[in-house]
């Protein structure tokens, strides 16, 4: 078991931050979850983190949501599940709603395309770097 038990508020704010700053889906999220959950707060060690990812991948559904459920349950029971899942999906729900309402007018702007053109390779690099960061903890 992990030694550190977070408050529900810390857990919610952490997952809200992860949800708000994860661009590119579940795999891109790994880097940020690892940083917050393993490096910063030490709620899980590296092996437990990999176990969490393994189980979240073995189950159907979204990797990001599955790992939020696992972590919430492990740290704070069903209340933890509620705050982690809400935190993980709330930012994307709000952002997508706003975009669905008005983005169609702006998506072809060259400035918007120029920004995302440079972000996309960065997202792939972060995913590739996660492989290097986790590889030494497989055993």
């Amino acid at each position: 078991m992990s030694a550190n038990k977070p408050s529900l508020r810390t857990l919610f704010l952490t997952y809200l931050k992860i949800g708000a700053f994860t661009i590119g889906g579940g795999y891109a999220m790994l880097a940020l979850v690892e940083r917050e959950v393993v490096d910063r707060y030490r709620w899980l060690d590296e092996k437990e983190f990999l176990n969490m990812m393994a189980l979240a991948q073995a189950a159907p559904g979204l990797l990001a949501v599955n790992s939020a459920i696992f972590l919430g349950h492990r740290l704070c029971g069903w209340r933890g599940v509620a705050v982690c899942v809400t935190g993980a999906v709330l930012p994307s729900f709000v952002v997508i709603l706003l975009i669905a309402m008005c983005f169609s007018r702006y998506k072809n702007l060259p400035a918007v395309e120029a920004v995302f053109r440079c972000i996309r390779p960065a997202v792939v690099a972060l995913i590739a770097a996660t492989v290097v960061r986790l590889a030494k903890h497989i055993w």
Partner: protein
Amino acid sequence: MVYLQLFLSFLKVGFIGFGGGMAIISLIKEDVLRYGWVTEQEFVDIVAISQVTPGPIGMNCATYIGYTAGGFAGSVLASLGIILPSLLIMLIICRLYDRIHDKWQDNQVFVWVMRVIRLLVVFLIAHAAITLMSPATFPDGWSWVLFGGVFVCSVLPVFIHTEQGSVGHRVLDAVSHPIYLILLCGAVGLLSYLIG
């Protein structure tokens, strides 16, 4: 009844969607085009937007398609539909894990099974990175320069060891932080646009 169709359709995707974002998107596509909620062209646009906005890609697609097909209520129902199966299945898995993990932590078979699974996970992540290295994501040489820069910054802490709390540790922490790296690349893109 578009609301019921939306909810049930995404509930189904939540139950059978193995293998992460891209696998799930191919499942969503079937029903979405069959029911005519969005056109094929719109669907491709939605997938692109889902990839460049915060949050899980499958969740973003569900919210966007739900809103397009059934307004605010549609977006809520589609999002709930894709999450509910995860809640049910993951909670069962968590219960089992807690029981097995605490008792079997020193069992050699369990240790080896988890090692193999961890190995597979790392391979799957590598596979995801490699499949994303397409011309759409990497249109020119500069994309690879950005990729290399971000990759090197991100793996630096693996190879350079610093004392917790030292200046070096904080500098390393900042240059390898995913959020800073993404924001920096976005700024580079904006700058390249402004200077033509």
